[in-house]
């Protein structure tokens, strides 16, 4: 099975600005299997997924590792949100020139 994953923010930047990537998923067809597949395909994105607080959404709802996925689902990787303004910003040191 393959799924299409939408990328946003720094994840899209890391994936050479591709708005979405197609990933072959094996195993039980759960979010965990997708993340495992990704480690091989896009090591940089995979590393960020583990290091940062990246959420996975399935059909516009936050999913967990055991959430079932299918090719028809709208799946997205969501890096830490930063909407709004006027808060205390304490971002990381990642500067992409």
């Amino acid at each position: 099975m393959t799924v299409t994953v939408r990328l946003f923010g720094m994840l899209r930047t890391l994936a050479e600005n591709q708005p979405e990537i197609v990933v072959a998923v094996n195993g039980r067809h759960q979010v965990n299997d997708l993340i495992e597949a990704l480690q091989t395909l896009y090591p940089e994105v995979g590393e960020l997924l583990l290091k940062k607080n990246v959420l996975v959404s399935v059909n516009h709802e936050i999913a967990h590792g055991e959430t079932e996925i299918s090719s028809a689902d709208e799946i997205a990787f969501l890096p830490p949100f930063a909407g709004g303004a006027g808060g205390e910003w304490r971002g990381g040191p990642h500067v992409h020139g």
Partner: protein
Amino acid sequence: MSTVKSDEAMLVRVQRENFSIDVEIDRVRNRSKRIGGIATFLGTARDRSQGREISSITFEHYEGMAQKKLREIRTRALQDFDVIEVVILHRYGDIAIGENIVLIVVGAEHRAEAFKACKWCIDELKHITPIWKLEHTPEGEVWVEQHP
């Protein structure tokens, strides 16, 4: 029925265009003559962030999911606080320093609840809404990571 729908659609928006606070406040005010207090939060683009100089900001959102989360915030604010109407707007695209980014307007009979709900909405927006912020600085671009 279509009027109600389009009304509701105007109360929660993610848009590129700027907005008028007077217009959005009137949207809230016109919902009920029992409103006595309207608390508003307007977020604007600052020229500095963690000591870095910012020249402009780009906001990106997850179309569909962002709107859904903002609608959820509005619905929960109307349920959990003694307030009458709530408007939530967030802009996307390129935003210059000093410009409007986000607006929360809450109308209530009494001011204490209006303040509480308004503060809750903007805090919650930051936590659950899939919106990302790219800061343009003289040294390059930075995707901002907000910690809770």
